[in-house]
């Protein structure tokens, strides 16, 4: 572990400016789901620029998956850290978020102005229905991967009931599920 840290410290493969530009490109041209973004990361950082190895990328992706918060953002932060420590984290995050954030602010301003426009309302009716379908599909895919036995099924059903029926606070439900997970794992 100490050795790995040492070698990382020695190996500043590129400048902060280049890290910002690479993540700016990733954040600007990657649309859609997790997998298209991950493929884009790999192509840009491993294959084209050769800043990190394939194994380092896989490890970064794993860290992104197993830390709280959005996995793609976390993968980027992890790679930024490997490339240039904390300053690398800052420029990678800024680069990755920049375009999406600016566009979201512009669209939000436009949307809030034009909210009562009948055409926009028609458009957003269709869009909202599609988003409900999208959320359903995300639940379906997550459930297929995560609900593997009666314990996980019980946790999912319990959390569903706690929110849908008893209207408990989801933050509390998440904390309770974490504690329950610890207890169930302990017994094993």
């Amino acid at each position, binding site marked *: 572990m100490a050795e790995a840290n040492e070698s990382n410290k020695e190996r500043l493969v590129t400048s902060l400016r280049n890290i910002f530009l690479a993540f700016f490109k990733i954040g600007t041209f990657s649309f859609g789901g997790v997998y298209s973004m991950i493929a884009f990361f790999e192509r840009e950082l491993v294959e084209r620029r050769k800043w990190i190895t394939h194994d380092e990328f896989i490890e970064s992706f*794993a860290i992104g998956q197993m830390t709280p918060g959005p996995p793609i953002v976390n993968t980027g932060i992890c790679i930024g850290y490997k490339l240039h420590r904390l300053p690398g984290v800052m420029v990678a995050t800024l680069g990755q*978020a920049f375009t999406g954030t600016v566009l979201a602010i512009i669209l939000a301003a436009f949307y809030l102005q034009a909210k009562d426009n009948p*055409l926009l309302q028609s458009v957003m009716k269709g869009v909202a229905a599609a988003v409900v*379908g999208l959320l*359903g599909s*995300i639940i379906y895919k997550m459930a297929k991967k995560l609900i593997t036995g009666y314990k996980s099924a019980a*946790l999912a059903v319990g*959390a569903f009931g706690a929110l849908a029926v008893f209207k408990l606070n989801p933050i509390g439900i998440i904390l309770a599920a974490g504690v329950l997970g610890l207890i169930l794992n302990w017994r094993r």
Partner: protein
Amino acid sequence: MEILKLAAILFVINGLTIGGGYAMVPLLQKELVENHHWLTNKEFIDAIAISQVTPGPLTVMNAFMGFKVGGLTGAIVAMVASYLPSIIIVTLVTRHYLQYKESWIVKGSFDGIKPAVVGLLAAVLIFLGRSSLTSVPLGAFAAVSFGLISFTRIDPTFIIIGSGILGAFLF
């Protein structure tokens, strides 16, 4: 100070949710729509749609919500508050990856949280569906979108844009 309250809420939610960008949706809906009434359910869904059609991570929906609560400052504060937990946690985990990976606390609590997130999302889907699927054609739209995203490789971005275009003619 609504903006600071929003920042605190986003910080906690981002620091707590495991299992993908969408894992945050139930917590955001509860806090921003039901507890603080900063957005309606409809605006909340539209924020998800906007973040889906803009490039980059889903988290940019927090910029939309921040903008609604506090204008440009609100949007920037919301983004910083959303990214801060990730920056702190991931930096620490990257330095201590092996210990973290083998930690029974991490493993155990994640085993509990991940399936719970599925249940929470399903509950929120009911709330959101109730406010946006107000007619049979809209229900059919949702069903088709579900089918296409679940069983084909079409990028959800195109389905959302396509639904908007169709919506302009149909509704």
